[in-house]
């Protein structure tokens, strides 16, 4: 049995421990790892701990998070029912129990869902436009100095302007209320997407570009197979941030609206002095924003599955 004559030497070399964080610095840390046979395909192994361990670690952490929220609700309830007034005034703030009753009433009616649907539609349209335009502009800026020099001044100048400040111009420039609101939401989501895409594209690993060129890749192929996948973690972060910003820009935009939208609902409740509804509107925006951001992250996960497991994500 002459092992030397066998080119296949998979049993000879220990594998590295998997927990090397999100960097792919695969140095030869071989101290503790035993030899692994070739049939033990690491990529297909799920490194998640068994259910019991999960409950003890992750389960406990979620419990702590829920408790943290519960504590806040209890304090709020006490402050409202006892009329807490020491600099901060809880006299006119409806207690969680009151808000809860109002929420049940809203959930049994139809209006509330119409508000949500209108807002979702606006965010969806604005967000898709922001993602498409933002990624295209971002890639162009990251790849071409000309594009960056032409586009960057606009971004630097326009980015700090808050969504509310756009309302007058949006009304003057755009034909319908709907388009004005979508424009304001779009602007909010656009900048984080562009800037993160630029950042990701500029971080392109030059060794990988050289490797691709020596393998016969064209410029387009390098963009597709090297630049974009390499920028993807940064782009995905931009998409998640953009989704959050879209929601709070939406609220500003919906101040314009005369009829529907969760931002309009919140604003209108204020003018009608319906305090529980204000809080319902606020929490709905927060909840929908969080949910949509979560969906974006989950939806983008397949694009990032190559990143090392075990890191914080």
């Amino acid at each position, binding site marked *: 049995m002459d092992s030397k004559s066998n080119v296949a030497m998979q049993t000879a070399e220990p594998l590295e421990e*998997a927990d090397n964080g999100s960097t792919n610095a695969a140095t030869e840390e071989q101290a503790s790892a035993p030899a692994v046979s070739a049939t033990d395909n690491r*990529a297909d192994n799920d490194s998640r701990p068994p259910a019991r361990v999960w409950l003890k670690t992750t389960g406990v952490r979620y419990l702590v998070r829920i408790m943290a929220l519960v504590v806040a609700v209890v304090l709020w309830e006490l402050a409202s029912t006892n009329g807490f007034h020491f600099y901060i005034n809880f006299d006119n703030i409806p207690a969680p129990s009151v808000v809860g009753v109002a929420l049940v009433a809203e959930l049994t009616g139809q209006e509330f869902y119409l508000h949500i649907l209108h807002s979702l539609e606006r965010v969806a349209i604005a967000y898709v436009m922001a993602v498409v335009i933002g990624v295209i502009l971002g890639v162009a800026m990251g790849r071409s100095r000309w594009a960056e020099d032409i586009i960057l001044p606009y971004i630097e100048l326009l980015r700090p302007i808050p969504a509310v400040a756009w309302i007058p111009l949006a009304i003057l420039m755009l034909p319908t209320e709907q388009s004005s609101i979508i424009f304001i939401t779009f602007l909010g989501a656009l900048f984080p997407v562009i800037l993160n895409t630029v950042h990701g594209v500029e971080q392109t690993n030059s060794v*990988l570009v*050289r*490797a691709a060129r*020596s393998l*016969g890749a064209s410029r387009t192929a390098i963009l597709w197979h090297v630049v974009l996948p390499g920028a993807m973690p940064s782009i995905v972060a931009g998409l998640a941030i953009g989704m959050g910003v879209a929601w709070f820009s939406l609220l500003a935009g919906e101040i314009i609206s005369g009829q529907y939208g969760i931002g309009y609902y919140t604003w209108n409740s204020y003018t009608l002095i319906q305090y529980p509804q204000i809080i319902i509107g606020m929490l709905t925006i927060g909840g929908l924003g969080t949910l949509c951001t979560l969906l974006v992250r989950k939806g983008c996960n397949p694009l990032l599955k190559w990143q090392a497991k075990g890191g914080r994500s």
Partner: protein
Amino acid sequence: MTDAPVNDNRLAVLDHSRSRAKSGKPGAERGRISVRDVDIVFDTVSGPHVAVQSANLTVRPGEFVCLLGPSGCGKSTLMNSIAGFVPPTRGDVTIDGEAVTEPGPDRGMVFQQHSLFPWKTVKENVAFGPLMAGAGQNEANGVARTFLSLVGLAAFENAYPNTLSGGMQQRVGIARALANYPSVLLMDEPFGALDAQTRIMMQENLLDIWREFRNTVVFVTHDIDEAVFLSDRIVVMSASPGRIIADIDVKLPRPREQALLTSPDFMTLKRQCLDLIRKETLNAFQQQNKAG
């Protein structure tokens, strides 16, 4: 334990390699490298820096040549100009009579480390070259599998690179470079980041593969043992400006095995290289001291 299946794979690979070989002259072997009067000068903030000076080098088809020298001596730069990444400031580089102007799949590159596409699986990495050459997905996958079994990593085709050890990653890198059936294989300190034991195994592994392919290999290293163990010829370079100062024939018998590392012939060659390198390193030190 037999290695028959592996050999079958190799034969299939070689047949394919021959059928795809394209050469101007029928029957001529591919992979002749010619470097003539090459200077490579970089513009830096502190003025021009001569990385390579008056380099002349001819590598015969199927020859295994090591470029040996202290770090910073321009050996990687010289290899990068053969690869087509760095144009020579003066002189010319040709492969089989054709001037090198840009990188291409006829010259496979193996880099020091971390050069696999981390977002592609092992198989997708190796299949990339054939895909770029216009092969269909199925054909490219087939080629990838063949070359992965050649380097002993068939079982890891669906793994992502960052789940593999450094040595395994480099084997994937070699498979990826070979999957284009290059006439020249350029290797830039490919085992430099590996520990000593893994490095020796990788060297033996590389020689086994090369014995079947017999393509031209240019291997950059600063490790004298590695250079003597692997090559037919050692080209020794001096430090700044990088010049070729010696061209040593290595007439050790092949196939080579680890036992060779302690043989008298090996020691003689090693001492010869050591003396040259030591002189150059001292020179470099003195230059630095003068500069500083």
